[in-house]
């Protein structure tokens, strides 16, 4: 297990196609979330949005290691994971617009995304709710003998919840192929970690459950990638679960398109410090320094992404709303 591998190490262990893919995904997430910020004031996206800006390296570094039929669960802050796992951008945008062409047929909104074709089995806004769901999916993988891995994306808030204890306990006992990715952004809404937990030691708690717990710089996509790769390999080999604490920061307010320092929610200096450690800026520098992607290629990639997002916006805005009698659809199977 490499000790906190850093961006600046030469990435000879990672294929350049993967390095490029990770840049594309991180930028796509960032540009998508920025597009929401741009469109939100028009008040046509009538859904609460919990933006992933600042945390892109985590969804990306983990998901790039997963196969299409591996499973993930995410939370109310799920756009990044949806995009990183390969969810359709058009269906995501349509869902934000509440249209029947949305990934959840307009029934879920921003907080309830699904894409079973790429292993996204759902997202829940009950903090800690998906921790046992991912554990159960991993149990099914073992019962079915299919070597599929399940990933739970959760925040530091979810570590407060009893389900964290119950899920890690069970996953370790049964040696289940599940990764618990704790995106520690040090806040649950506006409540700082130090007001909720007696110590800043999330990764260490795995020891109590007799399973590995690793702390990693969540804004270093290569570090996240390497740690996740190891953990997934272990899981697939039947060696059980891993807790990975990725330390990061949420740039925008808990919910909504704005910053929150003006409201006094979090200190501006804190945000400024983390913005200097922007995961995309850092990775971009690495890619340019190592001549993996050129500046002009980066511009091309950005243009392509912006075009794809624009097409998604048009699709979302022009899609029909659900019919009123669709209200009663899918209560039961």
């Amino acid at each position, binding site marked *: 297990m490499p000790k906190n591998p850093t961006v600046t190490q030469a990435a000879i262990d990672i294929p350049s196609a993967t390095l490029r893919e990770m840049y594309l995904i991180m930028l796509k997430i960032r540009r998508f979330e920025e597009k929401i910020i741009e469109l939100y004031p028009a008040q046509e996206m009538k859904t609460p949005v919990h933006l992933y800006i600042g945390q892109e390296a985590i969804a990306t570094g983990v998901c790039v290691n997963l196969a299409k039929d591996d499973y993930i669960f995410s939370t109310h802050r799920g756009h990044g994971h949806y995009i990183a796992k390969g969810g359709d951008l058009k269906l995501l945008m349509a869902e934000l617009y509440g249209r029947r062409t949305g990934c959840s047929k307009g029934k879920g909104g921003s907080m309830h995304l699904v894409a079973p074709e790429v292993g996204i089995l759902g997202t829940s806004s009950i903090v800690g709710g998906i921790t046992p769901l991912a*554990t*159960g999916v991993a149990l099914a993988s073992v019962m079915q003998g299919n070597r599929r891995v*399940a990933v739970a994306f959760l925040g530091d808030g979810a570590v407060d919840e009893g389900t964290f204890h119950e899920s890690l306990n069970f996953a370790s006992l049964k040696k289940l192929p599940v990764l618990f990715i704790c995106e520690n952004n040090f806040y649950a809404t506006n409540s700082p970690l130090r007001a909720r937990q007696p110590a800043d030691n999330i990764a260490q708690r795995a020891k109590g459950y007799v399973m590995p717990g690793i702390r990693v710089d969540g804004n270093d996509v290569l570090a996240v990638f390497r740690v996740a790769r190891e953990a997934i390999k272990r899981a697939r080999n039947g060696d059980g679960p891993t807790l990975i604490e990725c330390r990061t920061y949420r740039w925008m307010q808990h919910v909504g398109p704005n910053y929150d320092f003006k409201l006094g929610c979090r200190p501006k200096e804190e945000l400024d410090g983390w913005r200097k450690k922007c995961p995309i800026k850092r990775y971009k520098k690495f890619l340019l320094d190592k001549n993996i992607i050129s500046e002009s290629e980066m511009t091309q990639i950005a243009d392509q992404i912006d075009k794809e997002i624009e097409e998604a916006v048009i699709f979302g805005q022009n899609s029909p709303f659900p019919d009123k009698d669709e209200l009663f659809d899918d209560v039961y199977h």
Partner: protein
Amino acid sequence: MSWDRAPVDISEIEKVSRLAAEEKREITYRDAVKEALTQVMETDSRVFIIGEGVDDPGGVFGTTLGLHNIFGRNRVMDVALAENGITGVAIGAALAGMRPVMVHMRMDFLPLAMDQIINHASKWQYMFGGKVNVPLTIRAIIGGGWGSAAQHSQSLQALFMHIPGLKVIMPSTPYDAKGLLIASIADENPVIFIEHRWLYDHTGYVPQEVYVIPIGKGVIRREGKDATIVATSYMVFQATIAADSLEKEGIDVEIVDLRSLKPLDENIIFNSVKKTGRLVVADTGWKTGGVGAEISARVTENVFSYLKAPILRVSCPDTPTPASSELEKVFYPTEEDIISAIKEVMRYN
């Protein structure tokens, strides 16, 4: 008189009479539950049992006794005391294609799992536009007595009846227990399957083969013309005793066994009320916001003009369950309470 005689639904009575004549196979309610589990697990490798103590020498009042010897402890899985987490695990397994049967030795332990049941299982399919579903069965055992007191005696079906997306089943006979449990496990939706342990020793005809009873269909246990008792679970048995007693006084009651609370067989209730004009609802839960309250509302909405009397409810009083045996006598509803209620509705002309 065998109180769980075949129902009056013509196709069912003909089939059951024929089979009963051919093969008088009577087993207990608990063995009917166990037989359902065994036969389903033999034929469908997706099904597994998960819950506290499912593999212990008690075998959950005998309902899972010895199953771990047949199917192994990975399919009859004992778990940590983590009801909410384990329910989430079961939901996850169901999402990934398994058919878990989660077992709670007492329904009183379900409140610990309410978040996963209400916020996830019941609405997961709806929230995601029908693209994923949760074929999970949760067996919850009710019953009380012997000083079990407030936390070992609760009948919480009304809470689950309230939640869209759940199905709620309360079988009263061995035949229904097996058929409805198999139907519940086969169902693509989350089902709360509520068994009353005071029924576990009751015997009745149960076919050897695998069969299902449709969820959402009640059954007439006894035809009558003067008043209707709509009853759930153990109250069906008590209604039958009450009916025998009332018959001696010239009052002829009809007994509707709901079998499922959700979906609810409204038509069987409405048709009976149209016939008798008088209704008593007998349920094992508390009075306020209980099953009787919901049924009363639906009856007045739909067949009001047929009512000759107010609708009365037989239930537990609105108190937690007391421990003392003398207090238990005035807490749990009995056939006497049903008889009083029927006599009361008969006073109206």
